[in-house]
């Protein structure tokens, strides 16, 4: 378990580091939330400076960071000036939707890419493999913005799916089940966009690592013993081939979170994306910092999950055989 313990300590250090980095960046910022107010002749400079001191913006960097740390320990993560409320509840109400999108996207990604990757590797050089390879390298190279805008154009043009928001405006009268259906149908497009981009990457890696494992002596031995093709692939090859792909999990989570930020803005999904974009545009620094911290937290959590899965999958980590490296 010391393996996980070390990972946890590392994660904590990482989060503190990210927060320090954020505050260092705020030092660079030339403007603040109240800059727009300064243009308004009806607000006196005194009012603005009193507001600044009320939110602690006139303090030095160290003092501000100390205050922020204290509020972070109280699970507030600072105070949003635009919303006049603590940051954490604001973020959390949106983060649920982002997490819903990202986890669904991730599940779907793995559901699609594991069979495709294994299958393509098992039939390497044939039609299926070639088409999977071409499609995945095309999807990897096309930027997510383009995929999102193009799919949205198709969907909106032919009214395939409802788009925008989580539910329709008049969702009050709907039953629980109808609401769920509504949310699911609106979630479909963003999830598909996310899955397309992510699974292309995973399929490529999985295919490569399965191909590598297929060449090893133990697979040939297993084949010689007469183990069936399906059992061989999914019981014997996949667990070995999966471990490099699992260590990609954290990486692909980063992609999913970035992607979902983009997709949320484009599809109008009420997640973190639109909130942080608005905060960026209105220079609501604590909200932006909160958003960055939350994304870092997700990443750290995702990497921990990946570590646990690796621990379960790869006995070499349990026995410490890899620590020598």
């Amino acid at each position, binding site marked *: 378990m010391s393996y996980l313990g070390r990972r946890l300590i590392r994660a904590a250090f990482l989060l503190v580091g990210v927060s320090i980095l954020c505050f260092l960046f705020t030092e660079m*910022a030339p403007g603040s939330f109240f800059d727009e107010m300064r243009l308004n002749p009806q607000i006196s400079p005194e009012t603005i400076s009193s507001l600044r001191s009320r939110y602690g913006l006139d303090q030095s960097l160290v003092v501000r960071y100390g205050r922020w740390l204290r509020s972070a320990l109280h699970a507030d993560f600072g105070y949003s000036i635009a919303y006049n409320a603590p940051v954490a509840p604001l973020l959390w109400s949106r983060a649920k939707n982002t997490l819903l999108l990202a986890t669904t996207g991730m599940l779907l990604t793995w559901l699609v890419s594991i069979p495709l990757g294994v299958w393509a590797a098992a039939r390497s050089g044939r039609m299926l493999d070639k088409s999977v390879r071409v499609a995945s390298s095309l999807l990897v190279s*096309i930027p997510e913005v383009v995929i999102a805008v193009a799919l949205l154009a198709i969907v909106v043009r032919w009214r395939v799916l409802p788009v925008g928001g989580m539910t329709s405006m008049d969702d009050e009268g709907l039953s629980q089940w109808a609401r769920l259906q509504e949310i699911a149908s609106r979630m479909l497009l963003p999830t598909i966009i996310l899955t397309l981009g992510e699974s292309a990457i995973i399929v490529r890696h999985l295919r490569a690592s399965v191909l590598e494992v297929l060449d090893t002596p133990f697979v040939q031995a297993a084949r010689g013993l007469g183990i069936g093709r399906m059992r061989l692939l999914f019981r014997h090859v996949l667990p070995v081939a999966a471990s490099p792909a699992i260590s990609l999990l954290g990486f692909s989570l980063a992609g999913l979170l970035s992607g979902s930020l983009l997709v949320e803005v484009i599809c109008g999904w009420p997640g973190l994306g639109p909130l942080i974009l608005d905060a960026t545009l209105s220079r609501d620094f604590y909200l932006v910092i909160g958003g960055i911290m939350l994304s870092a937290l997700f990443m750290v959590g995702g990497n921990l999950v990946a570590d646990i899965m690796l621990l379960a999958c790869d006995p070499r980590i349990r026995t410490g055989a890899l620590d020598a490296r």
Partner: protein
Amino acid sequence: MRAKTASLIVALVGLHLTLLLAGFVAPCDPGAQDRDLPYAPPTRLHFVDASSWHLRPFVYRWSAGPDGYFENKRQSFPVHFLTGGPAYKLLGIFEAKWHLFGVDEPARIALLGTDGFGRDEFSRVLSGGQISVAAGIAATLLALLAGSIFGIVAGYYGRLTDESLMGATELFLSLPWLYFLLGVRAFLPLHLSPARTFLLLTCVIGLIGWARPARLVRGIVLSARSRNYVLAARSFGGSDVYLMWRHILPEVLGLLLTQAALLVPRYIAAEVTLSFFGLGVNEPVASWGNMLSTLQQYSVLVSYAWLLAPAAAMVVTSVIYSILADTLHSRLEFRST
């Protein structure tokens, strides 16, 4: 193999030359508005009129009717090649008036239609591409410069230097890039002159991206620094800087080239995403991102498919670069290891 490489080079050179000479290739001034022709569909090239065939294509003018635009067939305008037109600055320096093609006034040729202000989408895709691709390339250079310096230093000196630098990369890699990008962008001024925005964007994108190349470079340097010829050069009294520059850097070059081909499209996408959100290059200067951002209105997205042209241009650029990256990867990196 050779034919493939040749066509790749042709595509690369063609793409960049077209963008570099955008003023010459584009028939119109990318900023010139025509309030009478908002959202006009792409101009059709005709070869056949009522009487006969023509070798030289010609166009009709769009006229606004009760149900949209229709071609006004009373007068036809032949397309001229290498003709005079609106003045522009070639490569940003030379005053020039020559265009690859164009039609006589008052007709206009808009190969990809026009946007909401009646500006020629084709000319804007080209001049926006200049901005977006240049931003991508500049940011890549910056990221690779920073990444290779830190990576070489970390790998070469090892110990504490290595650990602190790699800790820093971990910090940068622990954030989803778009959150990071938005965050850093949030702390910088929103409204700037186009030139300063461009500079700022490339700096931000490049500085966020240094971490991954730095780690990759470090990996190679770790194995390179104990090679015999490096040890030999050190025993002759070569200084650290000399060793890094003369013996270690060449080992890394293959990786850097491959990374460059990988990163350019990614950073183009980063610039496009920021401009799409309204945080990057602003109107009236065109960039693929702010051109696409008009599509955030569903009504525009549905009705005017030709406004997706910048997206298509991005796809072409990204695909060319990713083929380049694959080619470089198989040629350079497998040879060196």
